Structure formats: structure tokens, C-alpha cells
């Protein structure tokens, strides 16, 4: 195969290791043999393509997409940002999916038995496609922190789960967005599973007063960086890279 379109090797030093014993569930679910390094082929540099026909108008508006009789309880926020690749090129038209707990820290999920109240007006899921310049935007409420069974007194900091595809199977990424100033971050084993301090801090969304809608909704900015191609041949630009 021609070398066109290959992605840079994943820098595993900025990702959490599979085995991180402070996060107890990782102990029995972590492979112990080394990963087999693969030079990319068509199987890796291609990936699913999603069109705008997939989306409904309220999919990225969590204030309204689960509304029954009133808007959900909680701090109204905008989460927005840009999807770029490692070469600082925008990643357009890529599917972004999010899910989160409600303002009290409870998920709308059959397996969540936390005592906090459910919110019948909040589903906690949203999705969108980045625009031609890589920008995306959601409207939601700020999720609450919640306890979880790990060490006896572990609490998850407020967070939103973010799933994103990019344009290849190897750019696929799932991460979590946290909020500036949360004192639970420094205690959280999942957050701390990321060895690199800078990489951790880039998961913290920053208050964005410029995008805040006065008297209405606070904005947070969260940029996402996906793997980039090793080179940027002219031919690839045809695909909007």
C-alpha cells in the first residue's frame, strides 16, 4: 500500500496504562502481554463515515432533548470547542457523542442505583457532528459529582463522557471532560491514571466568559485533539483534512 494517509504512532505515554491498581476494576481487565505493534493498512486508515441525516435538531441540546414538562434541574451550561488533529488541522464532520449524570450525580441507566434523585426531564445523552472547521457545541446542565465503589470514599469529579471517531478506525477516542476548579480532581484515581500532568489538565474544560450568554447560560471550552497523519499530502486535502 502507498504510504498516503498513515497516522502518527499513538503516544501511549500520555494515555493511562491498562493496569492502574488504584482504579480497581482495571486490575482484572488489563492485558499483561505487550501490544503487538502494527504498521497501518487500509484496515486502520479507513473508518466509519457518518452523515448529517443521522441527526435530529435537538440531539445536541440536552436541556430540551429529554424535556417532559420543564427543563432539567441544574446549572445551565454550553460546552463547546474545536476538534483538531495533531497537525493542528480541523477535523470536520466527525461524530461526537456525550453522556453524563444529572445535576445530582445520578445517571439515567438501569444499572445506576445511587440514592440521588432521578430527573425525569433529563436523558443525559447528546450527539453532534463537528462543522466544516471542526467546531462543535452542546447545551446541557453541569453534572453533579457522585460516589462510586472503588476505595470506600471515592467520588467522581463532575464530568461528561465524550466519544469521538475522527476519520479512521485508529483515531477513535473516548475520554472524559472535567470542570475547572473541581477539588475532587486531585483525588480521583481515574483522572490520575493519566501519567502526564499536562495531558490530565487538557481534560479540564475552562470557563469561557466570551461564549457565556449573559443572564442565561455559562460556557465552557473543551478542545479535542485526535491523532494526525504523519504527513499531509496534497491528495488528502481533497477530503478536507
Amino acid at each position, binding site marked *: *500500500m502507498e504510504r498516503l494517509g498513515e497516522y502518527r504512532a499513538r503516544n501511549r505515554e500520555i494515555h493511562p496504562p491498562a493496569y492502574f491498581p488504584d482504579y480497581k476494576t482495571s486490575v482484572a481487565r*488489563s492485558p499483561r502481554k505487550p501490544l503487538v505493534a502494527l504498521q497501518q493498512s487500509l484496515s486502520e486508515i479507513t473508518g466509519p463515515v457518518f452523515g448529517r441525516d443521522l441527526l435530529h435538531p435537538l440531539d445536541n441540546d440536552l436541556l430540551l432533548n429529554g424535556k417532559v414538562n420543564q427543563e432539567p434541574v441544574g446549572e445551565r451550561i454550553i460546552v463547546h470547542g474545536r476538534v483538531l488533529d495533531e497537525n493542528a488541522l480541523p477535523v470536520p464532520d466527525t461524530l461526537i457523542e456525550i453522556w453524563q449524570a444529572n445535576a445530582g450525580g445520578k445517571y439515567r441507566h438501569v444499572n445506576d442505583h445511587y440514592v440521588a434523585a432521578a430527573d425525569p426531564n433529563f436523558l443525559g*445523552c447528546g450527539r453532534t457532528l463537528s462543522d466544516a472547521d471542526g467546531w462543535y457545541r452542546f447545551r446541557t446542565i453541569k453534572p453533579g459529582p457522585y460516589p462510586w465503589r472503588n476505595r470506600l470514599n471515592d467520588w467522581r469529579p463532575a464530568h461528561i*463522557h465524550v466519544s469521538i471517531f475522527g476519520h479512521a478506525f485508529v483515531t477513535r477516542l473516548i475520554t472524559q471532560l472535567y470542570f475547572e476548579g473541581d477539588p475532587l480532581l486531585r483525588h480521583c484515581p481515574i483522572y490520575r491514571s493519566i501519567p502526564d500532568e499536562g495531558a490530565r489538565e487538557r481534560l479540564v474544560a475552562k470557563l469561557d466568559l466570551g461564549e457565556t450568554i449573559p443572564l442565561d447560560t455559562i460556557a465552557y471550552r473543551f478542545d479535542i485533539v485526535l491523532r494526525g497523519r504523519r504527513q499531509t499530502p496534497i491528495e488528502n486535502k481533497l477530503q478536507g483534512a
Partner: protein
Amino acid sequence: MLTETASQTAGPYLHIGMMPAAAGLDVAWGQGWNVLAGPDTQGRRIRLEGIILDGTDSVVRDAMVEIWQADGNGRYPHPEDRQDKAGDGAFRGFGRTAADFQTGLWWFDTIKPGAVQGRHGTVMAPHVNVAIFARGINIQLNTRIYFADEAEANAKDPVLRLVEQEKRRETLLARLEERQGQPVYRFTVHLQGELETVFFDV
């Protein structure tokens, strides 16, 4: 140059965002993504099913499995596949499903992919690319499913041959069972232990 955003576990509630119906939500999106073969799709219809076992041999019941595969002719529905063969417009190549909360079983109704051109003039045996996400998995695990009844093609496959210990190559094979006349390929993932599945750094 920028640095890739760090991964975090998808957690136990991943269904909410990616397969809301599985979480118990009345949301239409994300349903039916485990059926890749539609009425007009070309190729041999198969069911691909499996379970995931952890290091204690317990079944993982909260995982999500995503697959990406070529069509029956061995072509990916993606603009960067420039192989000189016809593509199947009725096949989108991507599948996603959740392990069953009780049994841990996951399955796809798909077609058997064709062979795909590999690097440097090689040919890759029919295979399905897999990514596994779950609570306790900090970054998705990538593997490939090959088909045990393709012994000749598998023996020449450049990726299987990368796995130094021949015995470990067997961890990548799905085995054929006939069930009520339908071909079912069964694949077991071992996250850890003696039989640990080969995972790739792609």
C-alpha cells in the same frame, strides 16, 4: 505539533451515550447498529458472536464492542480505499453493540468480509477490526477477528505473521458453528491470563 487528547475509561454507563435503548432510555438513536447486513448487502451472511472474559475468567457484562470491516469484495466504504474493485453501496462496514447484562454475549449479523490489500503488495486474509470499551479499560483494546476456516489465507496474512508465537495467533480466530442452518462464528476475548487475546497497537 499538538498532543492527542488522553483517553479515559468509558465507564459502566457507556450505553447512555452510544446505545441509549440498552440503558433503558426511550431514544431511537444507536439502535440496530449490530445488524450490518441489510436486504441488499452482497456477500455471505454470517453471525459473529462472542463473549469477553476477564483475568478471573468472569464474563464481562458491561462492555461495548465496535467493529469495522470490509464488504464482501474486500473493500472498505471509505474514500481512502482506492483498491480497484467494486464497492457495495448497501454496506456501511461499522457495527456497535453491547454485551448482554446477564450473559455477556454480544453479536453482529453481518457478511463475511473479502480479502483486503495489505502493505507492500501483500493480501490480508478476511478479518474484522475490533475495538473493546468498558469500565476498567482505560483505553480501548484493539484486536482483529480472523476466520478459522480460512487456514490457507490466514497462513499468508501479514498481520497474523507479526505475532511471533504461533500459538497466540489462535487467539484471533473465530470458529464456525452451524446453528439452525445459519453460519455462526464464535470469538472469545480473554483480557488477561494464559489465553490472553493478542491486542494491537495500531
